[in-house]
């Protein structure tokens, strides 16, 4: 293990280390802690200039309920859900299939198609912006959740295929050969043999894509406008325009917008990190 395990060092250093870690953590998260404190302050604290002192009263409940009951925030949140969930399902479904095709079969162009997915996944979005916006308008899907979902599914398929293909590659190939000898149809091999083995990959990808799409901002402003279809990342800017200088409400709004991916991360941490660090270890 590197660095040298702390258990083997002097008692004094061990104690120092255990005190140091939370201290560094607080410094690391300081900007976020500040926002969390803002979000439970009453508005008089801001008008009286008491930005960094103790809250003069605890107004967390008032602030958060105003976010939920007096603004468009719930709609934006709901939009985000209706954009994120279908995208996750679509991208994972498509990439299970494409990953299976690229991971199991040998055919000409296999590697070429695989690298096309990888390359497309690295592209800066901006080169897609004008044509994709145009295409979405032509299909009559501008400013709809569906338009956003279709694009996200397509774009995320690149990363997902890379992920799935590499995962399937690592499965024991003898399993598939044995099934073929038994005369099992190919689609049944996919459905009954490979898919059940892919559960960890599906879980990892789902949480990753959920976070990526929930946090997307660029495509939200390119393909949608207005509260009827914008997700919460784009909605937070109009929310902030509505409550300009009301820092307690803007803070509460930001925390609400940031919370779902955080919750998903903490609930599915193992899968999330497994997905994110795929390939970091050989």
């Amino acid at each position, binding site marked *: 293990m590197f660095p040298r395990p702390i258990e083997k060092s002097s008692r004094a250093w061990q104690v120092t280390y255990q005190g140091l870690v939370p201290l560094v953590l607080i410094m690391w*998260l300081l900007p976020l802690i500040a926002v969390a404190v803002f979000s439970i302050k009453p508005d008089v604290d801001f008008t009286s200039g008491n930005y960094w002192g103790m809250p003069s009263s605890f107004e967390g409940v008032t602030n958060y309920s105003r976010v939920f009951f007096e603004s468009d925030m719930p709609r934006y949140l709901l939009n985000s859900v209706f954009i994120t969930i279908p995208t996750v399902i679509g991208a994972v479904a498509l990439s299970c299939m*494409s990953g299976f095709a690229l991971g199991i079969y040998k055919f000409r162009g296999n590697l070429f198609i695989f690298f096309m997915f990888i390359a497309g996944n690295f592209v800066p979005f*901006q080169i897609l912006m004008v044509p994709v916006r145009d295409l979405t308008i032509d299909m009559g899907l501008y400013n709809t959740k569906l338009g956003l979902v279709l694009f996200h599914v*397509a774009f995320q398929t690149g990363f997902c295929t890379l992920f799935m293909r590499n995962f399937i590659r690592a499965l024991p190939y003898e399993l598939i050969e044995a099934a073929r000898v038994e005369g099992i149809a190919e689609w049944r091999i996919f459905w009954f043999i490979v898919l059940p083995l892919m559960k960890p990959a599906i879980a990892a990808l789902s949480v990753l894509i959920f976070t990526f799409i929930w946090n997307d901002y660029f495509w939200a402003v390119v393909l949608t406008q207005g509260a009827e279809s914008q997700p919460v990342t784009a909605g937070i800017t109009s929310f902030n325009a509505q409550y300009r200088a009301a820092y307690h409400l803007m803070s509460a709004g930001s925390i609400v917008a940031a919370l779902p991916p955080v919750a998903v991360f903490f609930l599915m941490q193992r899968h999330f990190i497994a997905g994110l660090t795929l390939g970091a270890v050989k």
Partner: protein
Amino acid sequence: MSQAINDQTSWLRRNRLTVTPLLFLLPAVLFFLVYVIFPIAESFQISFYRWDGLGEPRYIGMANYEELWTDRAFEVSLWNNMKWLALYLLAIPAGLMIALFLNQNVVGIRLYKSLFFFPFVISQVVVGLVFTWFYDPSFGLLNKILTGFGFDAVNVLGDPKLVTYGIIAAGLWPQTAYCMILYLTGLNAVDPEQVEAARLDGAKGPKMLWYVILPQLRPATFIAFVVTIIGALRSFDLISIMTNGGPFGTSRVLSFYMFEKALSEYGFRMGYGAAIAVVLFLIMLCFIAYFLWSMYQDEKGAR
């Protein structure tokens, strides 16, 4: 009749190893072509036209690119992109340092690791807001700390000289967290026997890190490099949220400038925007080529 059906099924059966992958690939490839591959080609094409997004596009040859050549705002954006690329890479050593700091077995270390990773999970929009307040000249925490230590207050986001660095610092926060998690995973897989052997040979500290640990962390470093370069060139959210390109356009980068030109309220210039995007794409292409080449070498090795 039954003979014909038999022929058909047997043709399918005989060719099932060709047909199945094609069918399984079809939906993904179709989506990807329509939404990713074709649009890239289309952007190249649009960059030779003058087009407001509504009327007829008019072919103007290289005029958009000639205009870029003399456009001061483009030059500023390009230069800022270079700053982003160079400074964003600091996330890699910073992430490694935090990972080394946290790679211990003490009580609660798992929770600490998750909390350190926190900034990556929240959206860049929220990171942007948080840092805008952090930098605020009148009440921001940064200036409270600076003035507390007797320094002058600075208006980071209002100062053309500082603004880009201020935004990059905000971007480094989640990116460092990402690199940290990559390295933590990598460190977990470091071969303990090699480390022990090196230790017996008297290697320790920086020497050990450089000659024994880092070579084993190569896959993690490669991924950290890939995601950091992509992140640097895609930077848009933070700029849009924190400064909207200002003050006086000094914090623009290509991706933001492109968006501004193509969809600004001063009239849509799709052709010009596409030309900027093409330049950005070509910069990225150098890196993409390198990434793909590295991955291809790995693939060949695997076969």
